[in-house]
């Protein structure tokens, strides 16, 4: 006896779900806003804590690691570290939480036939709200240090948009896979904890010698680089853009196939 899922085209299923899910923007945007608000409700400083936790993190890191770079490179390192961490915070949060995209929405999924992408968009929106707050801190650091940002710096905005595009497929893919295989969530958490050190955030690629030949293949490096390089090195980071482009296309194809194929099973797996 074979359980059939019918002969539906997975791409069509996935894209229909994404389209219908996006159209529920009223719902997912308010759920995202509510999630952020609820987290900080009854605290005096509220969402200022998002900025505070990011700011304190940066300052402490600078105090400890900044001295290694001496006076002259100190302010460059501050920009390097803060712009790198700005992206790392949201990338890490969205990958780690991706595993729980559908599991945490089971109350909805079991009782309402809404498109599943609603919960993907909700989580992406929630992480973008956090990103908005940390962006204020980053802007403050740049205003304080006054580096000369060239016009190529606008590429960093494009880098953020491409990152958001990637956040969606990561959640679609890991959301489905981690609902079926409950080890995935823990595996992802473990890997991401290590990735913090394998990605050039604290350290710079030219400091680690030939190890960079291996670490260059870490996709997260390139997501950081396309944001960071235009801002602080006035460099477009073209090779990193190509790397990110490939990751985006391959990731989306993979996510559409997996999500389209197994979308209807998610409700049985949660």
């Amino acid at each position, binding site marked *: *006896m*074979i*359980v*059939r*899922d*019918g002969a539906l085209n997975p791409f069509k299923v996935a894209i229909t779900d994404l389209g219908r899910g996006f159209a*529920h923007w*009223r*719902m997912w945007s*308010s*759920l995202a806003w*509510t999630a952020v*608000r*609820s987290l900080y*409700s*009854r605290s005096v400083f509220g969402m200022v804590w998002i900025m505070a936790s990011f700011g304190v993190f940066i300052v402490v890191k600078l105090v400890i690691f900044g001295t290694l770079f001496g006076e002259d490179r100190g302010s460059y390192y501050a920009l390097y570290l803060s712009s790198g961490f700005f992206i790392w915070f949201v990338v890490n949060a969205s990958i780690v939480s991706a595993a729980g995209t559908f599991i945490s929405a089971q*109350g*909805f*999924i*079991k*009782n*309402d*036939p*809404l498109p599943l992408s609603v919960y993907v968009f909700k989580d992406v929106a929630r992480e973008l709200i956090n990103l908005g707050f940390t962006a204020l801190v980053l802007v403050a650091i740049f205003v304080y240090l006054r580096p000369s940002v060239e016009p190529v710096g606008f590429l960093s905005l494009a880098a953020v948009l491409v990152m958001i595009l990637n956040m969606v497929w990561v959640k679609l893919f890991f959301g489905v896979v981690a609902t079926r295989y409950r080890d995935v969530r823990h595996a992802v958490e473990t890997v991401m904890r290590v990735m913090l050190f394998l990605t050039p955030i604290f350290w710079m690629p030219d400091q680690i010698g030939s190890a960079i030949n291996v670490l260059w293949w870490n996709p997260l490096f390139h997501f950081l680089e396309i944001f960071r390089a235009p801002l602080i090195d006035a460099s477009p980071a073209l090779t990193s853009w190509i790397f990110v482009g490939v990751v985006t296309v391959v990731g989306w194809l993979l996510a559409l196939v997996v999500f389209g194929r197994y979308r*209807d*099973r998610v*409700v*049985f*797996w949660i």
Partner: protein
Amino acid sequence: MSSITAENVGLDLPIANAKNLAKADKSRYFRVGNVHHLRVLDDISFEIKDGDRVGIVGRNGSGKSTLLRVMAGIYRSSRGRIEVTGDPNCLFTINMGMQPELTGRENIFLRSKVAGRTTKETKAKLDEIIAFAELEDFIDLPLRTYSSGMTTRLAFSISTAFSPDILLLDEWLGAGDANFQKKAAKRMHSLVDDATVTVLASHNRGLLKQVCNKLMWLHLGKLKGYGPLDEVYAAHDEYYAKVESYHKLL
């Protein structure tokens, strides 16, 4: 015009981490690779037409809730076809999406957005929702400060504020104290009256006789009977009386 048509609908539920199924009913349990499956619905065909108010009966685990979820589009059937014309609204749980840290008023807006209503539509109904829940004095307090009765009243009031086309109910909804129960029952009956199709799964025979004109009888995932309420109930009673006398003989 609303209708629900099912042709040979079957549903196999994958059961994660199932153990000790050796003794289970082989006709319903099977394995695909390493994953155990339970045949929850088997070869179900029916037609629900405009104006039908269908009750679903059957013992625990007979597939009532599952069938409702297939009708609602929450589960996609493994086999067969189901066609739903009209906008189904499933009131399976009235508390879905209520946020303890938000005020009652904010919860009304959030829940309405989840139900796909615009802010304008919600505003038009807002006073009525609050008044029905009898929470005028507490509506701007966080939900976590409400008693469970108050929360249920609000959830009920929000869930039933908009009349759906196709009303799908997994058990009749009620809430609150005796006084509110009366109001709630009246609201439920008016929802049924407004809906073009109602499907209600319940164990309450008195209620089903009062609300429904047709009956669907499920037994171990199969449709044992579907038709006029009294006829199906007669067959249903006869069957279980037989089963019982058979057990007595043993």
